[in-house]
């Protein structure tokens, strides 16, 4: 284990039960997050990025979900723990920020109480200390009048304020790892910029690791140190953020970057369209390169039968050999 490694995921398989059969939404993902590092997981809907995030804290409904593999947090395997043991980690060592604060926050509880909840569970604090800490947290996430917000209900706050309150909950016990699942997707861009700045600032202060789940490549470019691009349950490319954006290699990463609008906006320009559709969980081809059906002009011999990771540069891995001679349609 590396010295400052926080979280290591080894060959994680998260499968959902549909009609009595299990289908893997996350299919053999391995990654490692260090202290003081922002690790972004990016992909489109259905690629398994959120299923992965929820697996880390075992937040899936165990009746319908099977999670296999290992998730080591500071050396202990989270997947072997029972609920009581897990609860010692949830909210204390690992904080979680959800996409939609309106559904994640309890509408019948005051903001202050919701933040104090985890303090009560994890910390030995008396009433006064708790309140002081809560006010401090609210101040820390940039809420202008923390005393007032403390006794307000979620519906009395704006979207940006609610998201700040949720960040305050996630950070209440100074976790060393924060999992942020689409933290700014529901917000306006100016608020998004503020929240991202806030996350960055807090992360630097606390030297914690962040797993940032998002579909927004702009957010990744601004926030992340490392990126994993996911497609159909697998990580297809991973590496330092600079490497991925400047030298994207996997056909999926390249296609995705080419379909971002507004970068090259000359009149009459067309955006790149990826052929076909993201396969559904049930109909997913699990043999060979999963992206192959979407790049039909690439010869079968370019793909590997059992795709493996190729290290193209230090820390930059690409799945399957099809990246080597790949050119986008229209590039010749």
């Amino acid at each position: 284990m590396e010295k400052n490694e926080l979280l290591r995921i080894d060959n994680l398989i998260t499968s959902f039960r549909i009609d009595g059969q299990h289908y893997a939404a996350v299919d053999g993902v391995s990654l490692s997050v260090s202290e003081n590092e922002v690790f972004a997981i990016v992909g489109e809907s259905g690629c398994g990025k959120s299923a992965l995030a929820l697996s880390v804290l075992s937040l899936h409904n165990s009746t319908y979900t099977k999670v296999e593999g290992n998730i080591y947090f500071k050396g202990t395997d989270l997947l072997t723990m029972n609920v009581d043991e897990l609860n010692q980690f949830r909210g204390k060592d690992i904080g979680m920020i959800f996409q939609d604060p309106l559904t994640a926050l309890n509408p019948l509880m005051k903001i202050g109480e919701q933040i104090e909840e985890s303090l009560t569970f994890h910390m030995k604090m008396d009433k006064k200390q708790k309140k002081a800490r809560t006010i401090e947290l609210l101040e820390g996430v940039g809420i202008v009048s923390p005393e007032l917000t403390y006794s307000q209900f979620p519906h009395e706050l704006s979207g940006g304020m609610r998201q700040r309150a949720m960040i305050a909950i996630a950070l209440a016990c100074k976790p060393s790892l924060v999992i942020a699942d689409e933290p700014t997707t529901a917000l306006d861009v100016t608020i998004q910029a503020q929240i991202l700045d806030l996350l960055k600032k807090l992360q630097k202060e606390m030297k914690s690791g962040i797993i940032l789940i998002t579909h927004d490549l702009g957010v990744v470019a601004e926030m992340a140190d490392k990126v994993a691009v996911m497609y159909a349950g697998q990580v297809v490319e991973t590496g330092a953020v600079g490497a991925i954006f400047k030298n994207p290699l996997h056909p999926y990463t390249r296609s995705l970057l080419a379909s971002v609008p507004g970068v090259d906006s000359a009149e009459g320009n067309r955006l790149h369209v990826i052929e076909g559709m993201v396969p559904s969980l049930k109909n997913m081809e699990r043999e060979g390169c999963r992206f192959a059906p979407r790049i039909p002009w690439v010869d079968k011999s370019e793909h590997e039968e059992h795709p493996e990771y190729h290290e193209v540069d230090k820390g930059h891995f690409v799945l399957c050999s099809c990246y080597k001679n790949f050119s986008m349609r229209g590039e010749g």
Partner: protein
Amino acid sequence: MALLEVNDLKVHYPIRGGILGRVQSYVKAVDGISFRIDEGETLGLVGESGSGKSTTGKAVMGLVEITAGEILFDGKDITRYIGKNHSSYRKSVQMIFQDSYSSLNPKKRILDIIAEPLRNFEKQTAGKEKKRIEELLEIVGMSSETMFKYPYEFSGGQRQRIGIARALALRPKLIIADEPVSALDLSVQAQVLNFMKDIQKQFNLAFLFISHDLGVVKHMCKNLIIMNKGRIVEKGVKERIFENPQHIYTKRLLAAIPDINPDRREELQHFREQVAEEYESKYHIYYDKDQRVYDLKKTGDDHFVALP
């Protein structure tokens, strides 16, 4: 002559209160805006939540009551007829919605969904109708057996295209697209945007493209309107606004867009801080004492800014 001309449009919603339910004040969702769209043009309407951009679209569509102002279509004042069903204006102006889950009736077949506008306006035999629907499905790139399926059988991108087919059914001249791609994934979004550009060329359509996503707007539009607090803060040709924003709100909005070049991170961060400072210190210059946005002033060719 402009296809659509909107002059000093106002939409105010009353706030009622007290035991008698008297009107106590108004929410000025749209408060005096003017713009025009030419034939075959795409006008981008940008703003954050609560800016009044969707209300503007609905007002033009006749879905909300207009408090004041006039709307001219093809040179004719149609303000009085705008909410009336079966007017020719209703035929010429159609809408594409953001959420294709809620804008397609789950209990209707695709055939009936697309045929609805046809049945409202054109009395056709079943055979003719079916032929027209086949045509429409072909335009949006879907096979004709699609007709007998139900919305749940389609993906988000496909559903959005079915919505577009319905909007095209009456051969409109103007389509109001309210956040048409914000619910879609990047690669599907690209598909729908390309497609919208194609049909625009093919049918010489005008779009009022309402969006919060500046990247998408930049890609789609020639002219832009930036809205804030129910008013227009800046209006003009896209290049002018992107390269030389004048209003502090526009500056702040543009600065907030994340860049996909990780090398520019520090630079952007610094720029953003600068703009935030300017926003704090110069806010009062750009808004009057009631926090209202000023009227537009011409600052250059095709560039208007709300300045005192």
